[in-house]
């Protein structure tokens, strides 16, 4: 039975269902319960934005607040994962990854291969990504390409509540380390979500809109901007196909290539910086594998190559928007099919 719930509730529900189903699932993070040792209410916060609220009442000590020591507790989650638990560690903001990165990219990511296939590391690291929260340079980054660069970790970034629930359940059941990226500006967005448990397999993109003129590929928040752009293009009789990648490692190359072979035109939208990004990755792959199908140069719409600015007027310019996506699509349709070098602004 489906009801309308927010992405925040969907994530809470996925954790709840998996903790109920599997006693080896433990959840840890800073203030994910809240109020530990403090004189007032227990379960006072349920995470900094309330995502894990209420889980402590149901699952008790399998939810653990941690000291402010990301290297130690993320590392402990990884170690416990190699010893039979299925930990979900919450990192609050993905920007804090810098503090504990070794445990992820030299430890968790390497074990399976480096130990000759003998180790499994079923750990999930949840973290908020993305700009638009007025949270400035150290709480707003879209660091997805940092992780897709590393073999051995899987990278997930849902754009809606339905996908968030199914992908988080899949992440917890998966036997490899998963970086689960939650866009903080999508937490409140509601859609129909079944109450029961379901898993969405990794590496399957979602085609949100069919169209034969141009393919727009994105993930996370900018999927919604891409959909807005597609509506605007449709008013000019340009039909865009919008592909939501959902998982970035593994990535669904087949769906991308299949779409580009039909449309001949590609716009990739990425909230990360332009260099070595998901956008440049997709553009390169298509250039290599579907060159013959392309009728115009691939267009990338990304954040600019600057840190996230604080001032709302600047931050709004920073995030790729629907007009710039539509504009990029139109460029692929123009006679030359090329454009001046450009950024999202």
């Amino acid at each position, binding site marked *: 039975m489906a009801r309308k719930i927010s992405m925040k509730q969907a994530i809470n529900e996925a954790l709840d269902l998996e903790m109920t189903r599997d006693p080896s699932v433990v959840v840890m993070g*800073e*203030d994910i319960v*809240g*109020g*530990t*040792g*403090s*004189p*007032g*209410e227990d379960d*006072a*916060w349920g995470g*900094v934005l309330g995502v894990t609220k209420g889980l402590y009442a149901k699952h008790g000590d399998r939810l653990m*607040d941690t*000291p*402010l*020591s*990301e*290297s*130690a507790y993320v590392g402990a989650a990884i170690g416990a994962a190699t010893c039979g638990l299925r930990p979900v560690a919450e990192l609050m903001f993905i*920007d*804090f990854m*810098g*503090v504990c990165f070794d445990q992820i990219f030299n430890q968790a990511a390497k074990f399976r291969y480096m130990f000759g296939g003998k180790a499994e590391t079923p750990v999930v690291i949840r973290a908020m990504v993305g700009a638009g*929260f*007025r*949270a*400035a*340079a*150290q*709480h707003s980054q879209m660091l997805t390409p940092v992780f897709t660069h590393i073999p051995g970790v899987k990278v997930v970034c849902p754009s809606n509540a339905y996908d968030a629930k199914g992908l988080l359940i899949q992440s917890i059941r998966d036997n490899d380390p998963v970086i689960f990226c939650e866009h903080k500006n999508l937490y409140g967005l509601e859609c129909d979500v079944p109450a029961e448990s379901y898993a969405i397999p990794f590496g399957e993109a979602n085609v949100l809109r069919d169209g034969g003129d141009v393919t727009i590929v994105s993930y996370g928040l900018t999927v919604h901007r891409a959909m807005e752009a597609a509506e605007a293009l449709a008013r000019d009789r340009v039909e865009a196909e919008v592909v939501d990648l959902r998982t970035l490692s593994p990535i669904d190359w087949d769906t991308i290539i299949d779409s580009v072979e039909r449309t001949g035109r590609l716009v990739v939208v990425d909230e990360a910086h*332009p*260099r070595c990004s998901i956008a440049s990755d997709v553009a390169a792959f298509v250039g290599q594998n579907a060159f013959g199908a392309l009728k115009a140069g691939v267009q990338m719409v990304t954040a*600019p*190559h*600057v*840190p996230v*600015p*604080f*001032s*709302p*007027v*600047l931050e709004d*310019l*920073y995030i790729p928007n629907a007009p710039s996506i539509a504009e990029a699509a139109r460029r692929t349709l123009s006679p030359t099919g090329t454009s001046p*070098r450009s*950024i999202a*602004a």
Partner: protein
Amino acid sequence: MTDDLASQGPFPLSRDDLLKAYRIMRTIREFEERLHIDFAKGDIPGFVHLYAGEEASAAGIMMHLKDSDRIASTHRGHGHCIAKGVDVHEMMAEIYGRSTGACRGKGGSMHIADLSKGMMGANGILGAGAPLACGAALAAKVRGDGGVGISFVGDGASNQGTFLESLNLAAVWNLPAIFVVENNGYAESTSRNWAVAVDSYIDRASGFGLPGVTVDGTDFFAVYEAAGEIIRRAREGGGPALLECNMVRFFGHFEGDAQTYRAKGEVEAIRASRDCIRMFAERVIEAGVVSRAELEAIDKEATELIEDAVRSAKAAPLPGPADLLTDVYVSY
């Protein structure tokens, strides 16, 4: 320090310095109380962590510093900025995201910096300031200028590896580095007594081979005297030290925090009994060194200063689109 010694009364500061310390604390308090109100009105974007209740720590330490001494601050940095001499108008404009802000609107509350004042930046990453302060201390040591580097860290952030590694580095390099633990009892909603396994930071410090001192951080004079001793020692090549200031936080972790993890009546109680500014005022007035009227005049000036800072911040220009792409080494 123009007054003669006789006018100091029972205090280790001159009358002028007492008035200066009071002005710093009162300015911080007015700044924070005003942000609290304006945030609730929806005027201020982003995360804002207020320093109200903790003023004696910033003032008691910064009274010993020159612009050439460096501090590395935290997410709760407004008080450190004001006490280190950062312009209040520029701070307010920064918090409002204006181009006249201390960081031209690019940093916001969590990243206010003014290197010309020795303020190396508030910081959004817990524990990140400690290695940076070691770097400032190293620079002072290499130059031999007698300067110090001071790292502020919360009780919660004192559990970061960066902080603990910095204690050791400062000790083995014998740096003029000072680690101020601002212990307000909470890290977000989590109790310090749960999250830090030792009772005293003196034990932590001695575990790393440096001296530690604990003071009542709501007592300006206790902070001032302990900091003075530690800073003098560091300037003379005596090496690093840790200063724990036990203090209280008047507002939530950040603005918008309902604070249900605190005891009922806790905030009212600490406001009534542990207000560092009121305690300071009572002591200096009682000692007959300054008059109530003098302090009230400072109160009035602080209110006016903040009012003016808010008014001019609101009227200041916003950054323009071109500013998005400046101050970075290359644009693509």
